[in-house]
Structure formats: structure tokens, C-alpha cells
């Protein structure tokens, strides 16, 4: 169980670095990149929960989260490009 706590601590420190980049990013693109990476790190977090609790539905959460994060990042990229979402 100590192992899970240590890994969760490392991932939490990574998340705080990303939050700094989201807060202080000079441009909007920096913030979009950090949001994308935050979604991917969250998938790792949820998998760690699956390891710790030995429950199956956490993995379903991970799959759903990666899908939603992907769609959101594509929408952000399209918005940055200056187009509307249906173009």
C-alpha cells in the first residue's frame, strides 16, 4: 500500500506543475497543452486506484476519461485555429 501512496505522490507533484502552467501560461496554447496532459495523467491516477482497490469499474472510468479528454483537446485545437466547431 505504501507503493501506491508514493506513486500517487509523484503524480500529484506532476499535477501541481501542470496547474502552475495552466495558471501562469503566457499564451492560451500553453494552457490547452497543459489541460491535455492533465487528462492523460488523470488516466494514470485512475489506473492506480484500480490497482489499490482491485475493482473493475475504475478501468472503465479510465477509458471514458481518455475519450472525453481527447475530444475536448480536439475542440480546443479547433478553437485555437480560429474555426467553429462544425467546420
Amino acid at each position: 500500500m505504501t507503493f501506491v501512496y508514493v506513486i500517487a505522490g509523484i503524480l500529484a507533484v506532476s499535477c501541481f506543475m501542470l496547474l502552475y502552467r495552466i495558471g501562469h501560461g503566457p499564451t492560451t496554447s500553453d494552457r490547452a497543452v497543459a489541460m491535455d496532459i492533465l487528462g492523460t495523467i488523470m488516466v494514470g491516477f485512475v489506473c492506480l486506484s484500480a490497482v489499490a482497490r482491485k475493482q473493475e469499474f475504475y478501468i472503465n472510468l479510465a477509458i471514458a476519461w481518455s475519450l472525453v479528454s481527447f475530444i475536448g483537446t480536439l475542440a480546443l485545437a479547433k478553437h485555437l485555429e480560429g474555426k467553429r466547431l462544425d467546420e
Partner: protein
Amino acid sequence: MSSNVIIGHILISVGAAFDFFGCLGLLRLPDVYSRLQAATKCVTMGTMMILFGTAVMTASPWIAMKAIICAIFIAMTSPTAADALARGSYLNGVRLWDKSVVNAFKERAEEIKYESGEEK
């Protein structure tokens, strides 16, 4: 501890290290594109390692199968999202770092701007 638990712990540790250094790169590198490169490669690799470690060390085959499906999904989607973000930020007008050497997208970006100007 059985051997698969030890292998899983090693994989998850390596994955967490990749995640950490990817985020460190996102914090320290100078412009959007190098940040995107460091963060996307490292974090994709790290999260896939964590997923494979979960697949190795778990007892249930269903968790293992879903973890591998999720890893394949991340391997497909994360480079796509990074490419879209880089393209979007270039067309948005974010400049490269002063000491950048090559810009392979420059001519294509001008063509894209020209074409979108014609449509209007």
C-alpha cells in the same frame, strides 16, 4: 510477493518517473512547441507504462484486457491531439522560440491562410 507483482511495480514506477519528467519538461522548456513535444511523448509513454503495469499485476483478466485496450487507445489518440494542438497554435499566431532552427510548417501555413482568405 509473486513475480508478476514485482514486474508490475517496476513498470508502474518507471511510468510515474516518465510522467514526472514530462511535466518537468512542460514546466521548464522555452516555447509552446518544445513543451508540447516533451510533455506529450513522456506522458503518453508514462501513462501507457502505468496501464501495462496494472495489466500485469492484477489478478482479474478483465481488468488486464481493459487496461491494454485503454493503452492502445491512448497510443492512438494522444499524438493526434498533440498534432492538432501544434497546428492550432501555429495558425493562432504563437511564435517559435528565437533560437529555433527549422520551421517546416511555414509554407503550408501560408497556403492555409491564403486559402481561407479566398473562401471569405
